[in-house]
């Protein structure tokens, strides 16, 4: 089951904050966040693990609510370089790595000067 992301798109001015949400209909072992620039591969931002451990980016934060099966990505004081499409990914089955991630459809973030 594909996780659901919201909003689909957001336009901000430089310096404003943004929140991107990701929710799943099934229990989550971890949530992975990626950013993709047009024509490029997705780049890893952050991973949140069941139990609260967080690994990733020092200028972007995120939360993981296991009970609600939701994660949110927080971009504060956004910079022009933050523009792109953000994807959340969740383990397809066991969380052991072999079966890959299922991704949401993405959130398009546009930062204007």
């Amino acid at each position, binding site marked *: 089951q594909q996780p659901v992301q919201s909003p689909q798109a957001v336009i901000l001015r430089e310096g404003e904050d943004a929140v991107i949400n990701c929710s799943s209909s099934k229990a989550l*072992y971890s949530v992975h966040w990626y950013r993709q620039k047009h024509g490029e591969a997705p780049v890893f931002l952050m991973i949140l693990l069941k139990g609260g451990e967080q690994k990733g980016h020092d200028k972007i934060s995120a939360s993981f609510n296991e009970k609600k099966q939701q994660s949110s990505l927080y971009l504060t004081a956004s910079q022009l370089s933050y523009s792109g499409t953000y994807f959340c990914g969740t383990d397809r089955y066991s969380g052991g790595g*072999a*079966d890959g991630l299922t991704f949401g459809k993405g959130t398009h973030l546009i930062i204007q000067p």
Partner: protein
Amino acid sequence: DVKVTQSSRYLVKRTGEKVFLECVQDMDHENMFWYRQDPGLGLRLIYFSYDVKMKEKGDIPEGYSVSREKKERFSLILESASTNQTSMYLCASRAQQLGGNTIYFGEGSWLTVV
């Protein structure tokens, strides 16, 4: 630095042709994946492999096959390309461990079938 390399960035093929997309990773990862990315649909898993010569169907395997003869190499094969397979294809790899291991993507292969 981690590296997933897709040998072909841009390809144009004719309907009915056999197409090979090659991917190599240098991280000694057990798991490799092929995703397809289309506007509005996100990334969808085609096939994956957790070991040499092992393969599993993902969410959209129809019209594709894969080959993994060596640990570092994973190939996607379109036996008879069709126009609805025009897309961006992303190869990825991931270590085998419980939790905390992310997926690393290659730069992508843009395939146009005419």
